[in-house]
């Protein structure tokens, strides 16, 4: 199989895929999309790949040229596919444990929320996107408050990750970039010490990779 990721270096959603593929040790090719200022993802050529005009897009191409390319869009869907298809440990997307799988799905939806608030604030501040900045920042703080309390109690239980398992899942990777880059959108993490500690733990994972704006720990 040959994996190709349509990606932009400063996009949190593309970074989520790079992070998981690095942790899983997967080889892949990158097609850089001129997201800003070129708006290449809104052009006709790219819309032939993804009619929604969003990045990332993953293409999984059979080696022998036999069979069709598998094309998948949307960050969190790609995480699900990559983990389910390529993670031999079965930890990152635990399909055989119904409760844990339910929790992963729950926190993946939570990650949609952090993307639409914290990362929206970042797009507003960095690239001039037209969001109601006060509203998205307040929304991010509401979610961070919930997550900080959740992670504080996880620590009290002797656990380290978002879901009820002794190992991280794709839910951690889906939420992490929105959190770690929140200050680029004017969202301080001063009030969320447990969230800050969890970002240390994610950054210490084997295979962790950086993106611009993220510091090593």
């Amino acid at each position: 199989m040959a994996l190709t990721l349509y990606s932009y270096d400063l996009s949190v959603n593309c970074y989520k895929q790079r992070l998981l593929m690095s942790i899983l040790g997967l080889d892949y090719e990158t097609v850089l999309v001129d997201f800003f200022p070129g708006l290449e993802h809104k052009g006709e050529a790219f819309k032939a790949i993804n009619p929604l005009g969003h990045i990332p897009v993953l293409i999984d191409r059979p080696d022998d040229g036999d069979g069709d390319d598998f094309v998948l869009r949307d960050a969190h869907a790609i995480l699900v596919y990559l983990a389910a298809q390529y993670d031999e440990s079965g930890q990152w997307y635990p399909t055989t444990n119904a409760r844990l799988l339910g929790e992963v799905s729950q926190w993946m939806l939570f990650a949609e929320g952090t993307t639409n608030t914290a990362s929206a604030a970042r797009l507003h501040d960095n690239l001039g996107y037209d969001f109601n900045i006060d509203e998205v920042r307040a929304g991010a703080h509401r979610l961070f408050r919930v997550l900080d309390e959740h992670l504080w109690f996880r620590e009290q239980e002797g656990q380290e990750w978002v879901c009820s398992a002794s190992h991280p899942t794709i839910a951690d990777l889906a939420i992490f970039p929105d959190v770690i880059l929140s200050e680029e959108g004017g969202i301080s993490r001063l009030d969320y010490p447990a969230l800050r500690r969890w970002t240390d733990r994610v950054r210490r994972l084997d295979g962790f990779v950086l993106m611009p704006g993220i510091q090593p720990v």
Partner: protein
Amino acid sequence: MTESGSFGGEDVAQRWFPVAASSDAPFRHVAQAKLLGREYAIWRADDGYVNAWENRCLHRGVRLSIGQNEGTELRCTYHGWRYSSRSGGCTYIPAHPADAPAQTICNQTYRCEERHGLIWVTEAGTGELPRHAAFGSSTSEDASLALRALPLNAPASLVLEMLEAYPAHTAAEATGSHSFQFQVADGDGGGVVAFVQPVDEAHCVIRPVLVDAPPDSRRLEVLRSEALILNRFREVVEQEAASRPSTPVIERDILPVLGRAASETSVSFAPSQSRTELRVVVTTKTPVADGVMSFEFAPIATPGEPAVLPTAQPGAHIDVQLPNGLIRQYSLTNRSGDQERYVIGVKLEPESTGGSTCLHETVREGDVLAISAPRNNFPLRRSATRTILIAGGIGLTPLLAMAETLHAAGQPFEFHCFARSQAHLPFASRLEAMGASVTTHLGLDPSQTARAIEQALGRHEPAAHVYLCGPAPMLDAAQQIAADSDWPEDAVHFEYFANTNEVDRSSSFEISLARSSLTLSVGPGETILDVLRSNGVPLDASCQQGACGTCVVELLDGEPQHQDVHLKPSERAAGDRIITCVSRAAAGERLVLDI
């Protein structure tokens, strides 16, 4: 409630406040805290010491709370400046790898204590952290449990006002004469003491502590139920805060305290009031090899001041004032950031002038000695791709500090220790702890030593550095071997114990001080350093025999006659600096110095 809760009229800078929970400062983490408008970086060193620092790097003002806790040092994430635990002093500036950061580059540190599972800070308080009556009189009786802290978007004054009506507790009463602590009884043991941390004008944190911790079996349940009560309370307070017109309650300007940042690197013109201005106590005196004694020095605590030694970098040495009046230089063996103590190794040299004999025979544990702050004329490049350390005998001491610094940081190094026998190898157990990075060479003759050094060096690679310390014949030979193996001079660093060359002090010449517009005569038997000092020009010096390099001065004009062992051949050839304690000019000549 006995006070309004506003901060007007109170000297809040003298008061202690909790700024974090102890659990907010786990291994190798940097926490971010804010109190009364000032931000703090809170981090625990590997030895358990909690540091509370102004949250900005002295270099570019970037928050240190996004830096890296390296165990004994905090590294700024922006340009890699490193600061030592305890003292806050800068230990390394990557952009100036050849220069030791000046002692004056020191982060602003704040007094900090841990109690009741909380980390307490005072901005300027000199007294002890007061005991709270609810917790008993001694810390050993403290069976408390810190509950989950709750940050609120509401001023502390409003929270204190509303805590009086804390919903789940009937018998609320204020404790003490001030408003930052609030005790409530809940019928379950000693109740909860809620400390309020004023963050800024519009924010605070409630830090509740249960006076008597529940049994482990009920711990999580209690933590959850208390958190639930507080969360409800927060909703009420925040609604109230949102409905009130915002009035600033903290009427104070917060100016960041930038610590002390002079020029970026060492300058030797700093007035040296006294060469040995520090008092330390000898805590241990232990034999570490045949004829070698190790001495550990600890700071002498002053009430209200943390006992902290000045920052030392690997390669640094101190002057030690001995009971017999002599002043001698010894390298520090402990690694960067290990500021709790200084450890030196002293080899007994019966034929010397009495420094080592005095330390070995007269100085005892418990004695108080006067020492200088550390100076570093032998700095370690911490971004090298390959680091080779070559030690002969007691020359191991500065290199041991370098090796342990690199070892702690997980950076590779090759440490070659030459000694007469295993029994003569100092600090063998510390060497053993570094495993395969250390190679010992025992009982070799000069030609075998030369071959071993040649093998150890190999060919020079980019960003490789070698550090040499040992007896003069070994260093002379090693430098020659390095040169023959094409090692560039700026990758070969050495420190001689002593200048064994005969120094000629017979000439009579003039020195002109370009910046001071002074011309002075140096007569036979005098040194440039003597003449400068007797004419009121302060100049730092240490060994006074041309070995350590402390008294170096830039030379603007004139032909120097170098007699030191500190300058490298190219530095001598450049003729732009002079070691003033031994080097001079030919009779009748004139040197123009940049001071």
